[in-house]
């Protein structure tokens, strides 16, 4: 029975994704259907149209295996070996260094702002 419920919820999440794709195409929203689906679900949960327990189990099926669904895309790198020979290899280096700087800055900015928040309000998050 648990499996049936989880599968029904997986199906429901898929429908939300399709709804996101549909809205994207109909209204030409410049966001991927998956993110529109996420925002849609957020909206439905917030206004209490659907309770959390209708989707929670299905969502954890996906979240516990999230990296798996990214693999077909990452394997696509195999077709780009030729781009990264010679000077092209610098593209990889630049991407890595820039990502490093991006993450350090993003982490430091949000963390220090959050810690100042805590000090001013005296509340712990």
């Amino acid at each position: 029975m648990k499996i049936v419920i989880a599968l029904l919820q997986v199906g429901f999440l898929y429908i939300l994704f399709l709804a996101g794709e549909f809205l994207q195409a109909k209204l030409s929203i410049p966001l991927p259907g998956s993110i529109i689906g996420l925002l849609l679900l957020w909206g439905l949960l917030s206004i209490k149209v659907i309770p959390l327990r209708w989707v929670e189990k299905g969502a954890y099926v996906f979240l516990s295996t999230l990296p798996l669904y990214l693999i077909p895309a990452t394997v696509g790198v195999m077709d780009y070996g030729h781009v990264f020979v010679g000077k092209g290899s610098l593209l990889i280096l630049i991407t890595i260094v820039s990502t490093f700087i991006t993450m350090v800055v993003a982490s430091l900015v949000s963390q220090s702002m959050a810690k100042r928040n805590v000090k001013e309000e005296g509340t712990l998050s």
Partner: protein
Amino acid sequence: MNTIILAFTMIWLTVMLYFLMNAVYVRLRSPFLVPILTTTIVVIVVLSLFHVSYETYMVGGKWIDALLGPAIVSLCIPLYKQRDIIKKNLLPIFGGVVVGGIVGMLTGVLAARLVGFSTELLASILPKSITSPIAMQIAEELGGIPSLATVLVIIAGLAGILMGPWINRWFKIDTAIGQGIGLGVGAHAIGTSKALEYGEQTASMSSVAMTLSAIIGALAGPLFGIWLFP
């Protein structure tokens, strides 16, 4: 080979290797053995050994890829459950995402320009921190190569999850918000898959960062590019 058998073989290969690599990771816990990286490498090696093209692989791969959409929708759950903490930290989240996003685009494009890469390549590297469907759109609008943009997005994501633990240690990033925002801003969905390992709060921060980056990127990315290379 029969298409159905081929598709099943590719799906089986990917799923089997993923769970195998996941078991290795759980056992050894080395940050270099994250299953998304090791599985990708092993799948590529196997395909190369048997002279199977990516196109052929995707006959089966596309079925796994089709589940990425609802998996991204599922990220709403940690987001929703942690909504009070997110509301309380709206400004720090926004600050980290906006500043980090700008730094990401600037450093990538400026370094590539310094090396003397063409505008086509500058436009392809600009959106590398943003989730790939958006990155492709931005690259295309600016005259870049969408498929190359996707590859750079993936490299950024994989590099991000490898560097994350070091960054956290070296720069004393010891809060869920700091760690989550870094992964989400620099490494999008791949980073968020890593953030799930740290717990629900970090995952929710990473999801917010990824989603906000996508929204801001979709709106401001092209403008930013026009300003950087008119």
